[in-house]
């Protein structure tokens, strides 16, 4: 047992905190107010930094960072801490600004899909481009207007026509989709069905590069928070990609939903990362409030008796305990992934807990600071708006409760839904 960050993780954390303080905080308000604009100075700086740092992937939430190390084969099983290190770093970046953190040019979820399911040729071609040139983004397009979590409802179609796949449909909630397709030479991984009657087995994913004709970013969503991050709606109108842009086999294997399961399993990696980003936002708010109180000479008496404690002290202690609970649940889920253990339940737990806690903590911080909390002069109100997404994306609170419940009850999806 060990609750202390390794030296390596501590160093990475400190570097990220410097970036958060030096590069993100100063522009956080600007890119919130100026929604739909691009923080190019920041993007370029992060792109440069990641170029000189080959572990860029690990700081950007892909959750597949350990892949590299595994292939190197040098490090002992016990010594891996890549997922954990990602969580630690991302907490810092989100502490800087959650919207900007999500906007950092990198292969993101799209890259993760290629990395997990692509052929060596696909990896070399599509991920390789992220090592050089101008900032790039890759995105994942799953959700459609008529469904959220129930991804077997995919209605976007992929039809084979000679050497090409022809895509038709509309995707929403595609993080960095606009930047992937129109602000860089990136790509989007699109889920589409080969046959709507064949359910999950017919759902495949396709790499759609920037510049593909028939791919139109029809809208960038106006959002409550994380406004610096682009959330694209993308329409595919007879969009054609070469036959070898499919990820995995083009065959529809009845009952063979391994591919689908594989994608679901990536949630085990991404959920703790989302939890970590939420924790970063909530900690930003809590740190701010604690500093403000300290500046006013208000001391938090952790061991004060209930009957003497002020509401303020109680709220702070409550928030700290809930936040630390979320962090430990998150670190545990990362730990398990780094050890190669199955962590679906624990990943969902970290996400469910963090989603709820981050929402409440940031709300309480706004409330504590009174008129100052409500004002856009400070970042508190922004953190409240940013935090809420934690309880929504990568599976809502309810979806994660479902996953946990199924696991502890030993129920299948047909037994509990």
């Amino acid at each position: 047992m060990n609750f202390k960050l390794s030296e390596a993780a501590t160093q990475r954390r400190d570097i990220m905190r410097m970036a958060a303080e030096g590069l993100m905080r100063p522009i956080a308000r600007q890119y919130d107010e100026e929604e739909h604009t691009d923080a190019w100075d920041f993007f370029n700086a992060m792109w440069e930094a990641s170029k000189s740092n080959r572990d860029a992937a690990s700081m950007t939430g892909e959750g597949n960072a350990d892949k590299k190390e595994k292939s190197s084969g040098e490090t002992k099983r016990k010594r891996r801490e890549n997922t954990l290190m990602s969580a630690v770093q991302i907490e810092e970046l989100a502490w800087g600004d959650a919207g900007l953190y999500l906007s950092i040019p990198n292969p993101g979820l799209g890259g993760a899909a290629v990395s997990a399911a692509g052929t060596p040729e696909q990896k070399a071609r599509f991920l390789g481009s992220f090592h050089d040139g101008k900032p790039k983004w890759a995105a994942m397009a799953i959700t459609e207007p008529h469904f959220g979590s129930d991804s077997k409802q995919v209605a976007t179609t992929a039809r084979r026509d000679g050497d090409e796949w022809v895509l038709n449909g509309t995707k929403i909630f595609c993080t960095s989709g606009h930047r992937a397709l129109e602000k860089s030479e990136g790509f989007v991984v699109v889920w589409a069905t080969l046959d709507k009657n064949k359910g999950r087995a017919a759902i495949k994913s396709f790499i759609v590069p920037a510049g593909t004709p028939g791919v139109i970013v029809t809208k960038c969503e106006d959002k409550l928070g994380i406004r610096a991050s682009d959330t694209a709606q993308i329409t595919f109108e007879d969009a054609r990609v070469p036959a070898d842009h499919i990820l995995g086999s083009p065959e529809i294997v009845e009952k063979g939903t391994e591919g689908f399961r594989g994608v679901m399993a990536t949630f085990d990696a991404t959920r703790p990362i989302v939890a970590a980003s939420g924790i970063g936002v909530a900690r930003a708010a809590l740190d701010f409030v604690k500093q403000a109180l300290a500046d006013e000479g208000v001391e938090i008496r952790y061991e004060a008796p209930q009957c003497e404690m002020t509401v303020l002290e109680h709220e702070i202690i409550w928030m700290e305990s809930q936040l630390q609970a979320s962090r430990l649940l998150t670190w545990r889920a990362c730990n398990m992934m780094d050890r190669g253990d199955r962590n679906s339940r624990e990943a969902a737990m970290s996400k469910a807990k963090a989603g709820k806690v981050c929402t409440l903590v940031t709300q309480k911080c706004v409330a504590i600071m009174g008129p100052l909390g409500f004002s856009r002069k400070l970042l508190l109100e922004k953190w409240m708006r940013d935090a809420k997404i934690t309880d929504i994306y990568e599976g809502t609170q309810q979806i994660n409760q479902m996953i946990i419940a199924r696991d502890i009850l030993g129920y299948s999806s047909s037994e509990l839904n």
Partner: protein
Amino acid sequence: MIDIQLDEEQQQIAETVTSFAKQQIRVAAREADENNTVPASVIDQAWGLGLIQNAIPEAYGGYGADASAVTGTVIAEGLAEGDLAIAMHALSPKLVVDPVLHLGNDEQKQRILPTYTGEKFAAGSAAVSEPRWNFSVSTMTTTAKSDGGDYVLNGNKCLVALAKDAPFTIVYAKDDNGVVGAFIVEQGTAGYNVGEREANLGLRALATYEVALEDCKVPAANRIGTDAQPMLRRARVAQAAMAVGVAKASLDYAIVYAKDREVFGVKVAQKQAIAFMLADMAIDVDAARLLAWEAAWLIDEGEEHMREVALADQFAADAVMTITDNGIQVLGGHGFIRDHPSELWARNGRGFVTFEGLASV
């Protein structure tokens, strides 16, 4: 005898106000929020309903109808169900009218009330909050020093709604004895300095300002009554009712959405997790309303009401937070998008816990 329902007249007012809110206010709400402006046409229409004038006696040019606090909650809830920022703008005259009407003397009534019975809307304003994290009425630092026949006001206020437009602002300040008093300050009075317009989390459409009171001299005749606490309590009840309106809007929208949206083969609303969440929201909307009614009724009856106002205020402020947050959650990802009004209600609803009620706006 216990009788927990609106009378027929109140019921009628509720229906009028609610249908106006849904048909005229709500459709304007999103644009108003994005553009930081309450549309004048909606305010004019609201003025046309006579809600303010009703409460003013005929002697001062009003309609001399119902001025009860209970009816006040009905109006406040109804308009807020449309949009909180627009409701607060439309009801801003009450920030001046209510204190003068209920606690002012005849001279003050003669002087002030006719401003609010004209053909056209006239704004009112109140300056309560101060730009500090730990502001509350009891920690108020704005002072009103006696100086011969005058009071000299000094201090910094924030969240002063319509401070630039209102012919009258009621400034709350501590007198030489530490009693919080209410002082009528006319627009243009020397030392009443309106600062920059504020930018806030919610209520973006409502123009609020910081106001610096720098040796702002007002005649003693401008003090309304003695202790301002009763006025603030009346305002707090109206705000609790507004919180109910916001919460109800969010609940109703979530219900419609959940009945429409499918997930895993059934409607979202058919899932217990969502359905029971909606049930809990409905319970607390009703509970908050009942508490606000009770507090208002006690005010109208002239009964002791300090505790009940505090209970209603606290309950409503908590309830609107939870309910509007759940209102987003029911919509999932769509709740986070500004195509839907849920996030707007959540932002507006936060105001109720972030400063001393919303006594100032």
